[in-house]
């Protein structure tokens, strides 16, 4: 089923199916006697194929939100539904499975395993997956093609440029056909030109129907997204469509107008 999804990435899903639903999520760290509210009552809904950027100063809770969304961390209280499933009551093993099947992580520092080739790195999540084992080579290959690296399959990370490394990491995040792609500062370690090409890749994936959340503090990255969420002190400070979305909508409006006339 998941494989089928991964094999047909170009079909853009229609409708307003909710992927992520957060209700009053809090995450409280105890440091000594002090209680730090890293997340302080976050409510949020993400529809399928949304393209969201989360912004905020350091300490605003965006990393914590990212960890909670990625099921790496548990909320102290509140409801977190992923694909309509309540994740707050799942066991550690079940959460590992959720991360494996529904969430793709992209990190700032790529986190590729240096002793493995690009394709082995991409295959890695399928080792832990229930039904990805047999077709792993094929799936890894097709997903590497998708990110435009089909000629770098046998290269090890130290033979790849920064942008190529990040592409491998994105391929690895996509290989299990996740519901959401979570990227934490994906361009933080790249120069501006490479950053732009990586962002274009994200745009392309979005167009193919991928739901994407990018955590960043760079404006130009955020402006690739269609919705920008600003965070401050563990709360959502603002949540609005980006200029690009508006531009797109105007464009579409004009197109429709043009077609109508």
């Amino acid at each position, binding site marked *: 089923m998941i494989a089928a999804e991964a094999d047909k990435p170009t079909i853009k899903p229609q409708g307003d199916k909710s992927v992520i639903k957060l209700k009053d999520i809090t995450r409280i760290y105890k440091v000594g006697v002090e209680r730090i509210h890293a997340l302080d009552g976050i409510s949020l809904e993400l529809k399928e194929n949304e393209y969201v950027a989360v912004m905020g100063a350091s300490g605003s809770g965006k990393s914590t939100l990212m960890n909670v969304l990625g099921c790496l961390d548990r909320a102290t209280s509140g409801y977190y539904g992923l694909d309509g499933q309540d994740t707050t009551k799942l066991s550690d093993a079940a959460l590992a499975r959720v991360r494996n099947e529904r969430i793709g992580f992209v990190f700032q520092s790529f986190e590729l395993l240096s002793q493995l080739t690009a394709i082995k790195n991409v295959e890695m999540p399928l080792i832990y997956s229930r039904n990805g*084992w047999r077709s792993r080579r094929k799936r890894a290959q097709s997903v590497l093609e998708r990110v435009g690296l089909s000629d770098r399959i046998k290269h090890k990370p130290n033979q790849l440029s920064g942008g190529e490394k990040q592409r491998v990491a994105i391929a690895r995040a996509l290989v299990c056909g996740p519901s959401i792609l979570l990227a934490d500062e994906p361009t933080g370690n790249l120069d501006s030109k490479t950053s732009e090409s990586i962002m274009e890749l994200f745009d392309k994936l979005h167009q193919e129907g991928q739901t994407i959340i990018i955590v960043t503090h760079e404006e130009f990255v955020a402006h690739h997204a269609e919705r920008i969420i600003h965070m401050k002190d563990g709360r959502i400070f603002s949540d609005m469509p980006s200029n690009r979305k508006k531009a797109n909508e105007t464009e579409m409006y004009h197109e429709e107008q043009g077609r109508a006339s």
Partner: protein
Amino acid sequence: MRFIMRAIIGFFRLFYQSVFLSLSQIWANKTRSILTTIGIVIGVASVTAVIAALSGLKAKILTQVETLGSNTIFIQPKRPDTGPLQHAPWWSIRFLPEQFDGMLEHCPSVKRFGRQTWAGSQTVSFREKSVENVSIRGIEPDCHKIESRPVMLGRPLSVIDEMQVRQVCLIDPKLRNDLRLDRDCIGQPILIGHNTFYIIGVLEPRPESLFGGGDQERSEIFIPFKTSFKLQRYLYIGVLAESKSAEVSEDARAEISFFLRRTRNIKPGEPDNFEVMSLQNLLDMFNKMALIVTMVASGIVGISLLVGGVGIMNIMLVTVSERTREIGLRKAVGAKKSAILTQFLIESVVLCFVGGLVGIGFGQLLTTGIANIPKVELDMAYIPLWAIGISFGFSGAVGIFFGMFPAIKAARLDPIEALRHE
């Protein structure tokens, strides 16, 4: 059922991946791996070499027993472990020939027995040729039948030689060659010391012997028991006996002891000043000794495995902390605790197995070395299959035992913390 199948399949995938991954890790950190596994290598090499040596010795003894016959009983003087005779001079507890007179009548389980003397080493000469340091043994005719040394030329010693105290002798082929005697040397006179003896027969060369043997290089001459007292007035006497069957060999030993205590005037309560040993006894003694050697060796091996294991644990802890980010990543992409645990456990077991394999290789080298040392009766040394099995078993166990703590540590890592690790 389906769940169990899935778990098994999942384990095998992980197993397959982990084995390859850990082999590549070992290869990538060659120096470290060698240093780490050296304890295991030494442990396994020494245990296999010791087992090989003991197995070889045992095989040797068993073939020996086959040629000697398991009914053979050796009787010789021995200082008691307790009592006033503990430090008695050997001379005072020597056997006297008459102490054995009438033994067959009093010991119904004994088939036959023969006294023998060791008349020391003499220079033997024939015409101008002489050979020094030839061991002279006086034997009664029955000794021939107990200790199977077939006569290949001439005749064995007879009762008549004994009764008439004839100066006749049996020689071995080596001495015949050394003295440049004819092939058919029967009837030739040779000088033993200053006494002329006539050769009546040539014995087959001595089979390699572990007991009462002396070394292979020395030649032997056999003369009648009584005649040996002509060469030397006082001689040490030992006795070979044979029980009627292997089943009654213990009875025979008891009867001989009882008989000797009377003829040697040992009062009730006093300890024996002689020992009666059957081949079975010797085998038992060997097994006891082998057990002690095995235990001492396993102690040493245990210590070296322990040290090796601590080394493994140490290096696995280093590996876990070096690869913290990898662990975090694996967890982030969906590895369960059990998967991480299995991966690191397999890695430490593979490391130990590699050590075990190298250890067995070294053990084989050592065994070949031992087997080729001349004059040491270990040429039959070999590594039995079960020893290889045990070596692998132990290295695996060490891997699991000492790999468990680092693996648990890895499995418990928090993915967020791990990914932040520098």
